[in-house]
């Protein structure tokens, strides 16, 4: 059984009087421990798919199963708890909380767990160590470079050891060198730590780092 199973998903938006069809009948499997790049032009539905997987949005019909749990059927509060446990999410614009330090930002997801202060401390240090920022614990986001901010965001996404890590254009706002660092990091997370990763990107070079590339065009998947 695949880790992620998307079956016959139909998704449409109502915008004013117009109905926009994003997916009419989408079916997709993502295997455990894989690194999938999802490519496609703007408006192809990449981000919508990511939102559906994270349970941030619901399909109009069809089912989405992640690690055996049917995401589309959960109540909002069950969904929040499920997200905390199973999903790590990285945004294009990092979205760190400016009032918290790197350490506190990474610690955020752990505040929702029953871990003790000491255990949390340990995990945060490990996560920041993995992304190579073990020496930036007390820095605030505005004191970090874009590449560093994005790596903090990745640490925040993996700190609770989620089942699935989702990234939405993680290198979209980075210069070439920083982007390279982030991509290498993602590759390492996949090969060394066996994290399952789905990354949305429109950068062909970035997609090359993945073990599997999918193309999404007008709501239809092609390998």
């Amino acid at each position, binding site marked *: 059984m695949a880790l992620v199973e998307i079956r016959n998903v139909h998704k449409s938006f109502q915008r004013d009087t117009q109905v926009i069809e994003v997916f009419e009948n989408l079916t997709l499997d993502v295997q455990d421990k894989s690194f999938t790049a999802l490519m496609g032009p703007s408006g192809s539905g990449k981000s919508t798919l990511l939102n559906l997987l994270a349970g941030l949005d619901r399909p109009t019909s069809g089912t989405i199963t992640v690690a055996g749990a049917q995401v589309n059927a959960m109540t909002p509060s069950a969904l929040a708890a499920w997200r905390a446990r199973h999903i790590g999410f990285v945004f294009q614009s990092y979205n760190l909380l400016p*009032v918290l330090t790197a350490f506190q930002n990474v610690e*955020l997801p752990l505040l929702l767990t029953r871990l003790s202060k000491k255990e949390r401390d340990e995990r945060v240090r490990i996560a920041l160590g993995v992304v190579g920022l073990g020496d930036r614990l007390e820095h605030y986001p505005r004191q970090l470079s874009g590449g560093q901010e994005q790596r903090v965001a990745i640490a925040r996404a993996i700190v609770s050891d989620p089942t699935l890590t989702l990234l939405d254009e993680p290198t979209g706002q980075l210069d070439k060198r920083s982007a390279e660092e982030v991509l290498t990091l993602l590759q390492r997370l996949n090969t060394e730590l066996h994290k399952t990763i789905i990354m949305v990107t429109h950068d062909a070079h970035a997609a090359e780092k993945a073990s599997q590339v999918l193309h999404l065009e007008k709501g239809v998947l092609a390998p």
Partner: protein
Amino acid sequence: MNLLPLVLANLRRHRLRTLLTVLGVALATFLFASLRSVVTTLNAGSEVASASRMVVTHATALVFPLPMSYRERLKTVPGVEAVTWANWFGGQYGDGKLFFAQFAIDPESYLAMYPEISVPADQRAAFLAERSAALVGKGLMEKAGWHLGQNVTIRGTIFPGDWTFTIRAVYTPTVRALDDRSFMFQYAYLDERTEHRVTPGWYVLQLRDAGLAPTVAQTIDETFRNSSAPTKTGTEKAFNQGFVTMWGNVQFLMNSIGMAVVFAILMVTANAMMMTARERTGEVAVLKTIGFTDRTLFGLVMAEAGLVTLTGAVLGLGGAKLLYAGTAFNGFGMLPGFDVTAGTLAIGFGVALLLAVASGLVPALRAARLSIVQALRHVE
């Protein structure tokens, strides 16, 4: 609580805004406590009265004196243990700017009737021994800068002429709410210096038992109903309360202003909370993506509002309590024993709590109900 650092970090985001909002709440609760204390102090003034004392006045009005002969007749009323009397002198001291109450009293019986007027034994003896001696409250002594043995001249308005008294005794009230700015002197001196015969302005009775008050009142008022000076007898508390109501509807005035103050600050606080919440829409969406539940986010905003208003309330209410106690404020002599009571403090904190709920509710609900997808689209 795990999330407290997050709340604190959020409050530090706009330090000035947080500070101003806290100070706003502090000002509001300070004013609230001050206004309410005016009411509680006025009421406490009538509480100071003893339940077993009654006051007999002329039925027509306080300004009409009662015959001296009533003294013996009142003594014979069943339940009455002691009788004393006093007169309102109503004089003016200096240019009239220092206002204080002056009474002519029958010294021995009056001081026996009022044990809460505490006078050192030697001064008491000196006061009793001299016709023109005066007994002055400690507060008035300090305010006027007088000292024992000093001569004080008061210009009579009801009893014409210049009256000179020698201060022979100073009293200290043993209860806070008793006025410590009164000026008392011997009734005999008033009588002696006035051309026509002076008679008592009111009588004070000591009852054997407070429960007898209604019967005693009825007996006395019946007895004198058809005489030339009919009486009105009531408990000392009712007598004092009569003076409180003379100010007009102080309670209503103070409460109305208090409400306006609280609402004005509600506007300021709620506005600050809303602005803060609006600026953070994107962050709320991020927290939700991480897995924070709607309820937790609701709680975070409410906790922030609560922390702001409670800090303000501690400053405002604590400030009021300390300031008034520290400066021994007494409303320029009009509010002896001015005090911020525990009840006022409790209500003040209740108001702060309501303020927190009222100002935090809308932004907290908005945060809880925020749609992640829409908010993120806004951010990205």
